[in-house]
């Protein structure tokens, strides 16, 4: 294992498309519902409808298609694997191909096709959310969506605060990890050879300074927050306020129409 070069940035692609400008709450809710209703589709027309809406989503996001395809790469193996399972093991309908004990039947081909399609739709939609929403916006959106749960004791504000701090510090911690690894390598540490035990043991001189400085940093942060008068979520104001716009209403209306369309057009 070598010190990593790429910083952790997540998948977010900054931009100013309609999808980028939607309220994160809208995006989270719409995409969650969309993922549920993908399972309603069971024939050509309903899958067609979903393909059209997902493609429109990708188009509106302004994210280069190539980037989405690259993100899909690790999932292709999984899709191919499930497709093969169905191709060979789902039986029924006309026999299309047979060689010795292997037969491929009509129903298997259909299932393999539908399931790969459903899979791609789900993965692409999930990616659209993280491609067009920064992790800080996602956190804000989740905090607001969880706020009603405060009544039952879910500390939405505290969770969101910790989440934002985590995300804020990931690049810093990343750099620090690399720095410590390089410093230890300069002293002769070797992370890449030897038995598994030896390799794991070589991480200890990296982990200890990392954790010690993390706990020190946590204490400094708490001190800095107290010095600035932080006393919990009650009555705290925010720099950026989330607001619903006309586009958000349109997104919800379109989602509603899609649900009706899918229920009406699916075969019973």
């Amino acid at each position: 294992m070598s010190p990593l070069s790429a910083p952790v940035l997540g998948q977010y692609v900054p931009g100013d498309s309609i999808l980028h400008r939607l309220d994160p709450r809208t995006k989270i809710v719409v995409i969650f519902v969309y993922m549920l209703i993908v399972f309603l589709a069971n024939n050509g027309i309903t899958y067609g409808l979903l393909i059209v809406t997902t493609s429109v989503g990708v188009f509106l996001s302004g994210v280069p298609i190539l980037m989405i395809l690259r993100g899909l790469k690790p999932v292709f193996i999984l899709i191919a694997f499930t497709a093969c399972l169905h191709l060979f093991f789902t039986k029924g309908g006309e026999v299309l191909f047979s060689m010795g004990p292997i037969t491929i039947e009509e129903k298997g081909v259909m299932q393999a096709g539908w399931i790969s399609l459903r899979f791609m739709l789900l993965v692409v939609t999930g990616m659209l959310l993280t491609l067009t929403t920064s992790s800080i916006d996602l956190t804000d959106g989740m905090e607001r969506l969880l706020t009603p749960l405060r009544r039952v004791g879910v500390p939405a504000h505290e969770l969101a605060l910790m989440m934002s701090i985590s995300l804020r510090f990931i690049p810093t911690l990343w750099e620090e990890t690399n720095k410590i690894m390089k410093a230890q390598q300069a002293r002769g540490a070797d992370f890449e050879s030897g038995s598994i035990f030896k390799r794991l043991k070589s991480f200890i001189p990296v982990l200890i300074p990392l954790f010690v400085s993390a706990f020190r940093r946590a204490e400094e942060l708490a001190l800095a927050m107290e010095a600035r008068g932080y006393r919990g979520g009650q009555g705290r104001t925010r720099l950026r306020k989330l607001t619903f716009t006309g586009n958000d209403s349109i997104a919800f209306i379109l989602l509603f129409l899609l649900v009706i369309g899918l229920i009406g057009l699916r075969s019973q």
Partner: protein
Amino acid sequence: MKRDRLITMMEIAIMAGIGGVLSYYVALRLWPQGGSASLAMVPIVILAFRRGWVAGVVCGLLVGLINLMISPYITHPIQVVLDYPLPYALLGLAGWFRPVDEKGAISIKRMGLGVTIAGLARLIPHFISGVVWFGSYAPEGWPVVLYSLCYNASYLVIDVLVTIILMSYLLKKAPQLVASR
């Protein structure tokens, strides 16, 4: 707001950040479906030992959500919850088995027990997720339960062993990490 509580909150946040970073230092790649041994369990377990299981659970929850935001592979709406926030959150249960007593004596056995129990707890949602996933994608008659159990256990066993080995070195060399003041 109590000072201890604020410090604990900040420790949770920073340790979750380390968890997010360590998720990328993949020690061994195992399966195409994304199972891999990583060091991400270590910070969650340390925090659970240091500040108790609630802090551990919250820290795990955050690590799961960070992973979800950074590299989401969503194949089923239920799978999202079962594969990202929940299993990591359950790792915090290691906090039930604090390996350091009041006198500062360290018990590697208790640590091993805590990590093993946490690993088993983490297996449950991954296992259910596998059953749900294969239930909706695999052909009928496929031994869904067995497959999910074997697949998920295969990489979790390695994760747990890696964590136990690293933790026993850490406890020996830097016991102050798990001793909260």
